[in-house]
């Protein structure tokens, strides 16, 4: 009975598509791009469950199940990598995430438009400096005879070998991230702040609220939605952030705190060519990442009613 009903519909869909076929032609290269370069590697993850060899290829390499995942979880580096990845990101969440929000709030309290604009322009600058250059500057400035230690000495301190001491790595890395991202990150909050209805401020002033009160009752609620979105996005990238910089500034002496899952994948996969094992580690990373994103989104929806979807 459904046959006669479906057939005309399908025909009308086809007719619709034929009528607008040019749109599909325009869209095709983009879809192919995503299929090849984004979905291709996703399916390439199959080798995480194989003993992959380049000569045999994906189709003929033997299947080994979860062996690589098991050996990663049992590896002595596993806990170290997990701890470092989580801690570096936790530092980022605690110090790096609020920094642009605080900057935006401070800028919002300024009365002089010119000073505000100058601060904005100049604090955006580090964002445009490449990872290689920032890392090179860190290696240079933080060395025993570097610029930072000269300043430490001016204030009567002892020079510190910042990039050689494992216990300092999380802090040093986070500081460099804040330096590079604080100004740029504040833009989105400033745009959210400019969207707050000015009448709310006037109303709260009439109610006798002081500046702190206005901040708490008008400003912060006004940008809460933006903060939540940025937080979810940030949590969704948690485990994959920053390795490009860590790869440049770490060294074997600080592996105990600096080695993260992605840098380990890089070494195992691309330097040691242990493709299957490193793919398994990378897949573990991606899956944990995705689960974190889903949970953050769910949490945000139940807490504030808003989320990414």
């Amino acid at each position, binding site marked *: 009975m459904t046959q006669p009903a479906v057939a005309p519909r399908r025909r009308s869909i086809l007719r619709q598509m034929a009528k*607008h076929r040019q749109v599909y032609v325009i869209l095709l290269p983009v879809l192919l791009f*995503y299929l*090849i370069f984004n979905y291709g590697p996703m399916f390439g993850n199959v080798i995480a469950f194989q003993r992959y060899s*380049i000569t045999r290829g994906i189709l003929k390499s033997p299947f080994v199940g979860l062996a690589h995942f098991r050996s990663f979880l049992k590896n002595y580096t596993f806990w170290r990598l997990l701890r470092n990845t989580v801690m570096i990101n936790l530092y980022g969440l605690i110090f790096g995430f609020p920094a642009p929000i605080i900057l935006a709030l401070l800028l919002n*309290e300024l009365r002089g438009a010119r000073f505000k604009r100058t*601060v904005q322009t100049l604090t955006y*600058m580090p964002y445009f400096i490449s990872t290689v250059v920032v890392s090179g500057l860190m290696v240079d400035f933080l060395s025993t005879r570097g610029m930072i230690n000269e300043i430490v000495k001016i204030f009567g301190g002892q020079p510190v070998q910042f990039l050689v001491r494992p216990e300092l790595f999380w802090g040093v890395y986070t500081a460099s991230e804040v330096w590079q991202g604080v100004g740029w990150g504040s833009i989105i909050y400033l*745009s959210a702040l400019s969207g707050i209805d000015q009448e709310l401020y006037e109303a709260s002033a009439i109610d006798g609220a002081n500046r702190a009160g206005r901040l708490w009752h008008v400003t912060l609620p006004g940008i809460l939605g933006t903060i939540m979105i940025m937080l979810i996005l940030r949590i969704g990238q948690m485990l994959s952030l920053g390795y490009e910089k860590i790869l440049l500034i770490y060294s074997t002496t600080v592996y105990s705190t600096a080695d993260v899952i992605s840098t380990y994948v890089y070494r195992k*996969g691309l330097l040691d060519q242990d493709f299957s094992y490193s793919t398994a580690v990378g897949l573990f990373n*991606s899956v944990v990442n995705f689960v974190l994103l889903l949970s953050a989104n769910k949490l945000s929806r139940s807490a504030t009613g808003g989320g990414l979807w």
Partner: protein
Amino acid sequence: MIGKRSTGSAVFDAANYAILTALVIVCVYPVYYVVAASVSNPVALYRGSKFLLWPREFSLATYKLVFQYPAIWTGYANTLLYVGAGVAISLALTVCGAFGLSRSYLIGRVAITMFIVFTMYFSGGMIPSFLLIRSLGMYDSRWAMLLPGAVSTFNLIIMLTYFRGIPESLEEAAKIDGASEYRILCTVYLPLCAPVLAVIALYYAVAKWNSYFQALIYLRSRTSYPLQLILREILIQNDQSMVSGGGAYDGLEAYAQNVKYASIVVATVPILTMYPFLQKYFVKGIMIGAVKG
């Protein structure tokens, strides 16, 4: 804002100015330092304190070395190629994708959008990507710098948001005149979205200029290295061939140290000279993106 300011409020304002001024110094001084150090006499800088308020014994000696170093030039040429061709490819794909997805009569529009957005949240990973590039025969080829990562989904969404804001009535008129979809895209949409096109081109250009990792994993021949990989040799791996190649120097270490600053300046000047322009457009781009969020 209104009426008499309390003492607490005045103290806060003073502290606020102080904090923001300190932040500006922290952001600007390292950049200023590199420029000042690069035009200082290398030996004088090396022997004395590393803290600079002003160039020490002005000298352009290290710039001479940098400009004589062939790898800087090949790196520059490669980077210009990757940025130029890369931006063209990225922009074309992004515009096509956004235009297609903005059509209300596109069948399966929601599904296709999800297909694209999903890649923002889940990635195939470093090693499968590497193996894919290898099996496509793109390893150590310049295409590996241009095609993988050509479309940034974030930029695509910014573009899409903008396209959706363009009233359909504009294209109705063109359609009555019998214009094809290609003509509508080129004559109605592209002229209208010139500002957002500029923003996205700049996003792509800066990202491509500054990236090094893709080149690190996909390229082997030093002749196709972009500037950032040459910089990595000089800054991170302490490659001193630039200095030692030019004969014995008084204070080799001092020169090796100082060519780093000059190389940074040479490699970063294009971005920083475009910077006032960049920041104006970039901020606009974030605002467009924020409307959607």
